[in-house]
């Protein structure tokens, strides 16, 4: 789960990392009031879970409260990478002498966290990594010991940080580590970490990615999830324990298992189609969950055919078949449905569906081919 800039920065502040004074606004009027309260120059920043806000015009400087209002007016409602901006953060503008990068990220292959810092901050760190990897200093964090102050000092030397900032920098790094650990995050990033003209370090932007597996013990963050811009479909999917991601294609996919789901999507492409979504019903899915999955897929107006691919292991094919029937009873649809069931209780599952006149397939490639054909044929035989 990605956190918004303002959420990340609030967590940073709790762990002693200095952030600019600022408040969240949902209307231009609020932005104006906040700017008046803060005094002086402010920066108005779109709160949206997408990169490239700056280039998209989602970050604007304002010299006066009236300018802040105008900036908020321009930004609120803006679309950035398909996401609508509903909130802006109004921050006191800082007098920036230098921009650093400081982040901690999960190193999957190394099975540890790695802290990275660079004197080339303020830009996409991946671009720095690609163009000038020597500009990024790293510290590997021992999972049993945690980040140690000496590692921060080492990193500070490696990026040739002004020595006067050493103590602050070390404290911020340790705070960032605490923030990550206590939030079950897999990434915590300050970019830029500004050196102000007054010689202070200040986290101007913040990004955190929280591990969904840790949310059960992060009640505050779990509640913060409510602020995320989820579509109704995504929200419903989550409530049923389904993994759903909407895409641009027209073949709705319902599969058990993430890997098989992706392979199924890939297969539709291979046969000239385009997947409308990723949807993993998970292991051992019961009929009601399957029905919810189908409802979500069918609610997408782009869907011209549905491909159901179930390889039963924990998941029982007869339960899946019952869920499919239940869904079509609730939401009658004319969209053609191709079903491929295999594994545990497959005979019973096939028997149930055969009665309902679905298109069935024995193999994944056959199923994908038929789904693409059905979708491209425009309409096909009604499902129920």
């Amino acid at each position: 789960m990605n956190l918004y800039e303002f959420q990340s920065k609030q967590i940073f502040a709790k762990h002693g990392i200095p952030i600019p004074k600022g408040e969240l606004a949902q209307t231009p009027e609020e932005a104006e009031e906040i700017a008046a309260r803060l005094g002086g120059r402010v920066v108005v920043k779109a709160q949206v879970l997408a990169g490239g806000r700056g280039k998209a015009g989602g970050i604007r400087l304002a010299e006066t409260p009236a300018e802040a209002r105008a900036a908020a007016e321009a930004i609120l409602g803006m679309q950035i990478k398909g996401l609508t901006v509903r909130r802006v953060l109004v921050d006191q503008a800082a007098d920036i002498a230098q921009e650093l990068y400081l982040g901690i990220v999960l190193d999957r292959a190394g099975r540890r966290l790695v802290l990275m810092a660079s004197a080339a901050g303020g830009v996409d760190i991946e671009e720095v990594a690609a163009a000038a990897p020597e500009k990024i200093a790293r510290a590997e964090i021992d999972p049993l010991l945690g980040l140690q102050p000496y590692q921060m000092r080492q990193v500070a030397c490696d990026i040739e940080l002004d020595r006067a900032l050493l103590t602050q920098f070390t404290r911020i790094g340790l705070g960032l580590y605490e923030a990550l650990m206590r939030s079950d995050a897999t990434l915590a990033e300050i970019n830029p970490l500004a050196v102000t003209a007054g010689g202070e370090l200040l986290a101007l932007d913040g990004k955190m990615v929280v591990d969904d597996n840790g949310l059960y013990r992060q009640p505050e963050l779990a509640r913060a999830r409510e602020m995320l811009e989820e579509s109704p479909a995504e929200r419903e999917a989550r409530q049923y324990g389904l993994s759903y991601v909407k895409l641009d294609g027209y073949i709705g996919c319902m599969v058990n298992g993430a890997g098989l789901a992706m392979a199924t999507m890939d297969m539709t492409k291979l046969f000239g189609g385009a997947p409308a979504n990723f949807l993993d019903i998970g292991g051992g899915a019961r009929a009601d969950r399957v029905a919810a999955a189908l409802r979500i897929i069918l609610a997408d107006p782009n869907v011209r055919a549905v491909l159901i691919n179930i390889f039963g292991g924990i998941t029982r094919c007869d339960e899946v078949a019952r869920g499919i029937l239940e869904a079509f009873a609730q939401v009658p649809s004319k969209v053609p449905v191709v079903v491929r069931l295999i594994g545990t209780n497959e005979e019973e599952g096939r028997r149930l569906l055969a009665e309902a006149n679905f298109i069935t397939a024995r193999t994944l490639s056959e199923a994908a081919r038929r789904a693409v054909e059905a979708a491209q044929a425009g309409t096909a035989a009604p499902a129920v």
Partner: protein
Amino acid sequence: MSILLDNRSRVVVQGITGREGSFHTLQMVEYGTQVVAGVTPGKGGEWLEGIPIFDTVAAAVEATGADTSAIFVPAPYAADAIMEAAAAGIQLIVCITEGIPALDMLKVVAFVRSRGARLIGPNCPGLITPGQAKVGIMPGHIHRPGPVGVVSRSGTLTYEVVYSLTQRGIGQSTAVGIGGDMIIGSSFVDILELFERDPYTDIVVMIGEIGGNEEEIAAEYVAGHMTKPVVAFIAGLTAPEGKRMGHAGAIIAGRSGGAKEKIARLKEAGVRVAEHPEQIADIVAGML
């Protein structure tokens, strides 16, 4: 035996009295696995279909000589269960449980390594040596013994591949699901090494997906150290960047971890990469 598991392996099931634990225990026994003990704290002294239940793994090991563990305990307790197994001297720990926080797993993996044990998973289907034993949740009947080693980050996608191999009469030496989480106990390379040394394995099938760079590291290993042919498939060519695809392993962030890059690296390493899962069996058949 093939790798890691055979019919002499002595298995203890942690979380044996749970719904999944008890169901799959019976499935494992039915497949021929020697399940010698179960563990559920507070239920020591009870039995499940003739299998003695203990309060701790240490007690189970002492009484039954268990050397392999299958873990079915719920996510908030699973990290502790893995460490308990490692501390009790279990050599092969297979954690089926899904949903363990990544930060917990960092500590667990470090601890398991310090004990010299091997962890498969978590969030994995387990492993099977066809005709001998299975420790996990895969449907046993789709497998058959043979010369193909299978290693995969995925669950049902592995079944798909194994099924198509078996349908063409091609058996498997051992099939290992290493799990889809960000932090897992054994990597592709760990398992490739074992297959390379295993006299019963002639060809290795590797099934990867987007996210992370384990496949890229595996490609390097194959180029440098493998003499046996490797056939691969990578899922997720149609997945968009930055979106989370089902399990935590499958995130593409920025330029790394994409399916195209993985496929390119594998091809450079001399790996035959299939365009779709069923094609794997075609390629393997042509090699035998």
